[in-house]
């Protein structure tokens, strides 16, 4: 990826992060940490990679995306808004009773959301179903799904993984947001799901490990997944929970807490400063 393209994606990702902060701060609740950690991957997928059209969100031939870690709806909403599926201003209605932007994604009310999620593991299974439909219909669309590393503790994830490999769903690409933290602390201390890559490999998946914040690595991994035949691919993306906001980075506490007004302002100022530094 040329430097210009990387710069562009960094700008987009930073704007996505700003939207995350705005949404969660307006709501007074929500999940900023795991939304910030995936912003770069979201920028790449929605602005560079996926065959999607905000004017035609239900196109049957479109690429699909499932936020299996549904609590990171702020990341999904901010990405969709910036991509043109609905107004960016609507992000400040997040989680409020009059808004269509609910705490966890609702496919029936939010343009661009391909599956309602929230109960961990189920989005992954649904993504497997979408990939199966694609194979049945001999269509070219690709299915992307984002999982959390804590989410890997859910048994259903492994049912879905087994199923995807069994049905050779090479049109399915999964990401694991490997930020190492969950609500009660480090994943290794709560209920250790490691070694992550090895587990997927044993389940018959192609495994790629990357830095979740390196656009060249993201692109290379996604392209590799696209051309790899016979197996689904998982991209295990080492990330920083809370990436982009200094006081949130690597903190389990910012999994599901909203910044207060002054904290939110500090976060936005940091992100704006980063944007300025890109010029």
């Amino acid at each position, binding site marked *: 990826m040329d430097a210009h393209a990387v710069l562009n994606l960094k700008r987009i990702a930073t704007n996505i992060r700003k939207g995350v902060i705005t949404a969660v701060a307006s709501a007074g609740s929500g999940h900023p940490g795991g939304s910030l950690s995936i912003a770069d991957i979201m920028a790449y997928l929605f602005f560079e990679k996926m065959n999607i059209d905000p004017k035609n969100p239900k196109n*049957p031939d479109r690429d699909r995306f*499932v936020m299996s870690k549904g609590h990171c709806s702020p990341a999904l909403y901010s990405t969709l808004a910036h991509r043109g599926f609905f107004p960016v201003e609507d992000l400040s209605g997040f989680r409020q009773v009059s808004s269509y932007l609910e705490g966890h994604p*609702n*496919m*029936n009310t939010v343009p661009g959301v*391909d*599956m*309602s999620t*929230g*109960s961990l*593991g*189920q*989005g*992954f*299974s*649904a*993504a*497997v*179903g*979408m*990939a*199966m*439909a*694609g194979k*049945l*219909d001999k269509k070219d669309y690709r299915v992307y799904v984002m999982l959390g590393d804590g989410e890997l503790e859910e*048994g*259903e994830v492994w*049912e*879905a993984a*087994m*199923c995807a490999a*069994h*049905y050779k769903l090479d049109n399915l690409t999964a990401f694991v947001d490997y930020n190492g933290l969950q609500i009660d602390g480090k994943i290794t201390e709560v209920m250790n799901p490691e070694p992550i890559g090895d587990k997927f490999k044993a389940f018959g998946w192609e495994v790629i490990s990357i830095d979740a914040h390196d656009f060249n690595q993201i692109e290379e991994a996604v392209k590799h997944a696209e051309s790899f035949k016979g197996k689904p691919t998982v991209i295990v993306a080492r990330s920083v929970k809370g990436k982009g906001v200094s006081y949130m980075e690597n903190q389990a506490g910012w999994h599901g807490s909203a910044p207060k007004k002054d904290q939110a302002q500090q976060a936005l100022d940091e992100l704006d400063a980063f944007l300025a530094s890109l010029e």
Partner: protein
Amino acid sequence: MAEKIATRVAYGKALAEIGSDENIVVLDSDLSKSTRTDFFKNEYPDRHLNIGIAESNMMAVAAGLASCGKTVFASTFAIFAAGRAFDQIRNSICYPNLNVKIGATHAGISVGEDGASHQAIEDLALMRSIPNMTVISPADGISTAALVKQAAKINGPVYLRLGRLDVPVVYPEDATFEIGKGVTVKQGNDITIIATGLMLDMALTAAKTLDEQGVSARVIDIHTIKPIDVDLIVAAARETGAILTCEEHNIHGGLGSAVAEVVVSNHPVPMDMVGIEDQFGKSGKPADLLPMYGLTAENIVEKAKGLLAKKRG
């Protein structure tokens, strides 16, 4: 059709009959020979997908397929469908209102020898408590075939409660059915017996005995537990003054409760319930279990007479 056929068999055959619709996809969890989705598999092997012993995954996979335009039938035993995969049915199928029909076989204690772990006595209670879910419990092979075909035509979640046991055919071949509409199978004025599933045939036998004893019993088949036929039930309450419900299900939360909800809020009359009295099943021949748990025509007659005494008292 034979004189006796299991509703699971009628289900499988109906799937095979409608299976030429390329949008239909059938999922199973290693039970196709038991759920009889194998009838569909034999005709349309490319659209019969085994998900293996992973019922939770199966239900959410079904949701994913449905989101891509498929009409999905997902089958396993009722206890695993309604029980184990409840969260997936609720969150991935019903909440987004996706087009998945759950063909839940082996419901009730008539499962027999497998025993309590496999005998779903709570599934109607569970499934009817989820918004957007249509709950169907057909009584015989004829109504099963008709209702499965209708379920395939509606766009949304449906729970189909089917049984293992061969049960008598109650309806003529040309009988018609409508989801949401109960069927008055026998007219009567003194008392109404509302039954579902395999209890319908027993209710009709009981009604015959009551006739001989001078009691005119109306018998209604409620094949759609949800949305329930409120008008038919209220009319029965008004016209007969007493209602006895019969189900192969816990007396808590199933047909009896659903009917009571309607009766109490519209036209309260004395009610009683024939069903499993809040106990787990056990291993045995269905023919031994059904009487052990009070699921007999004789018990229906007894309870009907008791209810009549209340009505007159």
